């Protein structure tokens, strides 16, 4: 529905990555994955099509969020709560756009399910595990070289990549960065449009 409204946007330099994605390869998944991520992730998050898909999905999701929380009263606290919801929605939409090919996208999509389960098991056993984990890392932390420490930090930043091997982690980070850039661009465009439209609508309303 929304796509019919797209103006004819000419493809500048980026062609659609789908042809590249469907390239040869019934071969090993790891090889495809790494090569695809490396060569295509930089391109695939930049194409018109991906951006439009993400933009339209984002709009739809945000509208649904708004409807869900429309009954609550608007206070400052609710804004931050709504902000969190919107961020999670945006992340989910981003992960959905990745079509489950990357690890972080699967982790984002899975975390929602896990968060719901956590509410039921909140008071149970997590504290004990945390302590034991902390003790281990405390004693081992001193000796880790700088590079490995930073790799761990990077692993914590990219969702779902804490225990991933180094080359895979770098691949995931590449794709994640490209996806985040696209997300930022789309949200900016949406925000700007809304800020530009808001005064207009209020003007017409009043």
């Amino acid at each position, binding site marked *: 529905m929304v796509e019919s409204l797209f103006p004819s*946007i000419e493809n500048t330099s980026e062609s659609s990555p789908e042809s590249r994605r469907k390239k040869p390869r019934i071969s090993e998944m790891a090889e495809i994955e790494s090569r695809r991520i490396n060569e295509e992730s930089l391109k695939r998050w930049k194409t018109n099509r991906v951006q439009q898909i993400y933009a339209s999905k984002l709009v739809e999701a945000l509208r649904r969020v708004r409807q869900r929380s429309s009954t609550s009263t608007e206070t400052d606290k609710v804004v931050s709560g709504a902000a969190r919801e919107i961020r999670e929605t945006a*992340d989910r939409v981003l992960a959905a756009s990745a079509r489950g090919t990357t690890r972080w996208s699967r982790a984002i999509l899975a975390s929602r399910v896990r968060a719901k389960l956590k509410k039921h098991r909140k008071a149970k056993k997590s504290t004990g595990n945390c302590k034991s984990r902390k003790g281990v890392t405390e004693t081992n932390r001193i000796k880790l070289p*700088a590079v490995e420490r930073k790799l761990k930090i*990077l692993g914590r930043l990219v969702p779902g990549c804490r225990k991933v091997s*180094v080359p895979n982690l770098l691949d995931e980070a590449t794709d994640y960065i490209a996806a985040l850039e696209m997300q*930022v661009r789309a949200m900016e465009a*949406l925000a700007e449009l809304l*800020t*530009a439209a808001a005064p207009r609508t209020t003007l017409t309303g009043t």
Partner: protein
Amino acid sequence: MLEGLVSQESLSLNSMDMSVLERLKWVQQQQQQLQQVVYQSSNNSHELLQILQFHGSNNDDLLQSSFSPFQMLGSGFGPNYNIGFGPPHEAMDECISRTSSCHMEPVDTIEVLLKTGEENRAIALKNKRNPEVKTRGEEKTEKKIKVEAETESSMKGKSNMRNTEASSDTSKETSKKASEIQKLDYIHVRARRGQATDRHSLAERARREKISKKMKYLQDIVPGCNKVTGKAGMLDEIINYVQCLQRQVEFLSMKLAVLNPELELAVEDVSVKQAYFTNVVASKQSIMVDVPLFPLDQQGSLDLSAINPNQTTSIEAPSASWETQSQSLYNTSSLGFQY
């Protein structure tokens, strides 16, 4: 003579219907011919022969191991070879995939290790090292997967030892150590002159090259990474950039949370939609370029013609509470964003 070998092989390779017995015989033929060639000809840097064999009783073993990339410089033989040699055996799905996946670009130097399980001999050809070849070799290196080697470690246990034997033998034979073990199931690494050729260091070198290649990709995408050298500095920049992007997303989501009530109204407006999607696409070309505010004209409809392709999505929100935050954030991040 080698041309004869090549032609013969091309014929045999192109026939996918080769039975296992035929293949075995052919491989043995190649061995004999190779041995002759090795003993007769001097090091010809333009010809590479390599056969690795494991004569197992298994068909699987044979198919996996018998792999001969005969490559001539500049010939398109490589790709043909690849396709033709894909073992049609159904049980060798993995093997098929591996063979079809490795791009045999014409390479100048390949080390040849020829072994026969029965005869327990190793013949290796080492050619002079070419700098160009080295880069291509590195490309090949990265295309090989360690998993392959690991999964077949049981079968290759003996062959590994023989490999090292062979390499050590050949290292004694030839002065130059430019060697690339090219086998279908192994990691392809290049041992440079004067460096260790034992198994572990080769594997580690391959791993390091893979990692450095991926860091290069990251370097391309993260702005400001070119100025820093070394893995630690680059990782610092990368972490900083990811955190910056995540903070931006948070900030934008806060902004959208405020603006959300207008979303419904705005979405129904067709012109707004069009502007939105052009903006999204247009902003991909230049991000974070500071441009004066998107004109709020009094016409009551967004003027699409006013949207330049170079226009950004800079934020000058009407509400004062956003202003300082947005400007500070975008000023700092605009320095880093380069498209």
